[in-house]
């Protein structure tokens, strides 16, 4: 059983929900990423989604776009992200790591090389924002062969037919995009997410995490009872927006940790469905 599957099994047994912070590898500076990952786990993260910096992050709102730019300013790319995961694994063999990014850096490395190196580095899964199942057959097969999970998005615009199709190829979990828009958008509507999750559950037994638009304990607590996990991205990444290159990033990391602790408590305190 993969790290992701066993995590969701354990959480289900405990009646708990996964808390999934998203950070960009190399943001605000590569030297902080592994430390930050450990701190997030200590603060209550169950899975870490590690963003692979890309020059053209088409699906991101302004906050995460800037995070990609900060990471790229330090030449952090897929190779460095894999090294960071390998370093993280020396001290943490338990917390699943999912790489989240865009197709081109993975394609440039080569699907086969990527699958092998990701597996060797201790990565658990990949979510490629701009690679829907129709284009993913080749990489999915290669990832499956080395035991990596392939995570796909489902959107408010996904038809039932598509939900079935995406679910058939997905492993690990499904990532439900809570709204029409880019990351960090502010118009979360819990009722429509509830309806969307009901459709997804009709066609899949995979755990479902919800992301886009979760910015604090309250929004996380509102969604957690409906799904198996919540993803926090922009609100977390925004903590690094005003970091001064000359200074130590400890205060920003402390703020990030505080946010994750707040959301952890809110999610754990939310009534079960």
């Amino acid at each position, binding site marked *: 059983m993969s790290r992701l599957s066993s995590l969701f099994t354990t959480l289900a047994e405990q009646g708990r929900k996964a808390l999934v912070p998203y950070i960009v590898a190399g943001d605000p500076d590569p030297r902080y990423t592994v430390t930050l990952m450990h701190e997030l786990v200590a603060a209550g993260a169950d899975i870490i989604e590690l963003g692979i*910096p*890309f*020059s*053209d*992050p*088409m*699906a*991101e*709102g*302004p906050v995460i*776009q800037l995070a990609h*730019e900060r990471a*790229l300013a330090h030449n952090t*790319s*897929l*190779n460095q992200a894999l090294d960071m995961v390998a370093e993280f694994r020396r001290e943490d063999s338990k917390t699943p790591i999912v790489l989240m990014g*865009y*197709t*081109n*850096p*993975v*394609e*440039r*490395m080569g699907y086969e090389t990527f699958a092998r190196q990701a597996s060797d580095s201790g990565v658990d899964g990949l979510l490629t*924002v*701009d*690679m*829907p199942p*129709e*284009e993913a057959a080749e990489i999915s097969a290669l990832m499956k062969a080395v035991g990596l999970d392939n995570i*796909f*998005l*489902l*959107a*408010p*615009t*996904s*038809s039932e037919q*598509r939900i079935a199709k*995406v679910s058939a190829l997905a492993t690990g979990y499904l990532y439900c*995009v809570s709204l*029409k*828009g*880019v990351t960090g*958008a502010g118009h979360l509507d819990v009722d429509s997410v509830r309806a969307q999750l009901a459709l997804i559950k009709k066609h899949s037994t995979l755990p479902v995490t919800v992301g886009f638009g979760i910015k604090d304990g309250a929004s996380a607590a509102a969604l957690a009872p409906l799904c198996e996990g919540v993803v926090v991205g922009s609100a977390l990444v925004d903590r690094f927006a005003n970091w001064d290159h000359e200074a130590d990033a400890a205060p920003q990391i402390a703020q990030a940790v505080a946010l994750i602790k707040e959301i952890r408590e809110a999610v754990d305190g939310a009534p079960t469905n």
Partner: protein
Amino acid sequence: MSSSKNNVDYAAFPSKEGHFGRYGGRFVSETLIFALDELEQAFLRLRKDPAFQAEFDRDLAHYVGRPSPLYHAERWSREVGGAQIYLKREDLNHTGAHKVNNTVGQALLAKYMGKKRVIAETGAGQHGVASATVAARLGMSCQVFMGEEDIQRQALNVYRMKLLGAEVVSVKSGSRTLKDAMNEAMRVWVTDVDDTFYIIGTAAGPHPYPMLVRDFQSVIGREARQQCLDSTGKLPDALVACVGGGSNAIGLFHPFLQDEGVEMYGVEAGGHGLATGQHAAPLSDGRPGVLHGNRTYLMQDDNGQISHTHSVSAGLDYPGVGPEHSWLKDIGRAQYVTIDDEEALTAFRKLTLTEGIMPALESSHAVAYAEKLAATMSPEQTIVVNLSGRGDKDIHTVAGIDGIGID
């Protein structure tokens, strides 16, 4: 020619999934899939609908001013002393470039699909102007995304768009040029996907855009083919067109693909020269990858990050290219070459002085290559050059290079 060896049925591409060989496809986030499905279904239905086709043809004739002439540049041909050069005068279209063929078609699609608002990206501003124009005519609201850097380079077109009632949104992310404008348009589309129609300006992007832009622009090649037969009694020996995203080139090439004897040359922006890395020539010096919804040749580094590009012409300053061109390159049906900034500027002046026709800096790349090519051919042979746009918008740029301020 390689086409006979390949024995390809070009009309069968793209595949149902939008692939041209290994290129093209649909690399977008899940939220947009339904919008692309909806667009594809509407297009496949409407292109067979006589009422839609009749309205499109009528608009092309009476609004755009088609057919555009095929002009025999006799004086220039004589000076070059080789093949006879014919110019397909897309510069004479309403709004001054080939772009309007596509925006008229896509705006009509938007109208038939009941969309009230259009958005577009633009580099040089020609596609933005063409989009603002058709939106004004149909009473739709229009938002044009343009890189901050391009807004400075193309002040005249920015003002034209505003006069036409469009909102021009300055894009300040990434390299602040066309690629970033396209990223931003995609972001806005994903947010307002229900009522917004995204008019992509070139034969790139996720399926079905490369197919539908090609089909709308193919009027260029269909006319040119017939005009050649009418005026010379035979098909041309070669076609030459500039390639940024490649919509004017695919529009000219596509109706000739099945004609084995017709050679095709796509001219990319060599910028300061291929060796400098400062250019916009992905087919000549790039590698396949995925950007803006399709797999195609891209300018990128070893980590798969998209490279900054350079060209004197904003309309060619783009790191990708339409997927059909990538495929035509790989199977050898078309050749892709480069012309650098300086050669393009020389051709701009040459055509202006010799024929009294001022080409856009984009089209000047095709003009420059045609001159080289013609010199290697005989006077019985003919070349058709797609004069994709007029140079009025570039006068500031050229004057600046000459050290002349004309504000």
